[in-house]
């Protein structure tokens, strides 16, 4: 009935103990979205073998939910193929965290966009960008700062 006002235990767990924080030296691909003016930035590094994400690390400047969704999103795509990872949505991330307060939903977009941005980098670097894949990145530039 009422909107959630409070972070779930899962959000708090991922916030207090974020998984996959850091950087990957010689990453196969990287992506950064957001900007400091808006109050959140996320950077994702990927290690990819045979089109499978074998390692992922992030750094995030942002609020509690930005950090928690960053952590959750990296967990969700770890071990996935790049095309599976492309299916990641902010809604799925939020749901995996048992939901987010309404005014914080936009933060979960940051994580989706950062992962996609890194994947785009990968496809471009490896010459695997196809029109179908291109289509999935269309929203990136529009939305990335739209929060």
């Amino acid at each position, binding site marked *: 009935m009422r909107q959630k006002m409070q972070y779930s235990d899962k959000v708090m767990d991922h*916030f*207090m103990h974020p998984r996959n924080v850091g950087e990957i030296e010689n990453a196969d691909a990287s992506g950064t979205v957001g900007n400091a003016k808006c109050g959140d930035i*996320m950077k994702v590094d990927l290690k990819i073998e045979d089109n499978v994400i074998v390692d992922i690390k992030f750094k995030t*400047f942002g609020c509690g939910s930005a950090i928690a969704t960053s952590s959750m999103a990296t967990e969700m795509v770890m071990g996935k193929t790049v095309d599976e990872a492309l299916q990641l949505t902010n809604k799925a991330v939020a749901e995996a965290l048992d939901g987010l307060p309404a005014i914080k939903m936009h933060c979960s977009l940051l994580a989706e966009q950062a992962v996609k941005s890194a994947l785009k980098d990968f496809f471009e670097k490896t010459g695997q960008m196809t029109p179908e894949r291109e289509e999935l990145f269309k929203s990136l530039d529009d939305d990335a700062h739209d929060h």
Partner: protein
Amino acid sequence: MEQQQRVYLDHAATTPVHPEVVKTMVPYFTEYFGNPSSFYQTGREARKRLEEARDRIARVFNADPGEIYFTACGTESDNWAIKGTALSRQKQGRHIITSAIEHHAVLHACEDLEKQGFELTVLPVDQDGLVSPESVRGAIREDTILVTIMMANNEIGTLQPIKEIAAICRENKVLFHSDTVQAGGALPIDVKDLGADMLSFSAHKFYGPKGVGLLYMRKGLRIANFLSGGAQEKNRRGGTENVAGIMGMAKALELAHEKMELESRRLITLRDYLIQQLLKRVPHTRLNGHPEKRLPNNVNVSFEFIEGESILLMLDHYGFECSSGSACTSGSLDPSHVLLAIGLPHEIAHGSLRVSLGQSNTREQMDKLVESLEQIVSRLRDMSPLYADYQKKKLTQDDK
């Protein structure tokens, strides 16, 4: 770090009601419950006590009892002062002067008027958050009807030169209102000495109850009514008086003033200790607000490279209750207009923390807070791409 006992450090947002104030209020719910406008004994008794409270409050401010009008909160007092003046003086002019660091109760009231055709001059502040009295003088025009500048800022604690500003307004025959919500109960206020036309107070900022405030209005001054209704408050503010709340406010104000000198000195010592420790032990930290001209209980700092909400969230997890700015704007995602007004870049404004001290806080708590903040800031920086960038740049520079 273990979950500790909770330490409340957000007295600028609200304060717990003093136990003596609660004791004062309770009989007014059931025993002296009469409507002060009523004729019979129960009503007269309520009226008598209400007017005694008005006398006592007036005494604290060196005001006339007739200059004290009870309201529902600081926000109502601000809205009344500003909109009431505008409505009653619009024939003389439609220009209002305020500052960039006012509380939203003042800013939004002014903006409401702007939409109705009034003109607004929003004075800038310097990097410490000070409004220059000369800028007020410079902004006053033929058609200026009101200047409204707060006495003490709720976010960065800066104290304005209100007496000088009041004098300039008087010279120029312009009404002067000051939002004294944060100053109430924290600083001595003598209305005769101060020379302002209107002042706004809210009881819950000085260990009184929420939902009751007052507007001081200089004798002889007449502005339009805001809450129109019954004949209460000499026909100037309708609505059955919140007797319990008003009795509580009077008591709270008296208590605050009784121990003001001592408590103020104690808070300033705590405040300065906390500031000094934070600046010393947490690198890339800056103090916001004026170093000396500030509320005895206000500490506001920015930690570079990290974001405020995540600081608050970790502090909360460890039992420390602070704010990242005005509590009222926590629904918003923009950084505080006050921090932007003192010139902080957005990303630094985002990483700010307000600690507002109160009666229950101790030096031991300050030590624990500093310790926690050291760890929290360092953890968040380790996660921050901004900090990583900064370190890389520094390395490159050091290499050169």
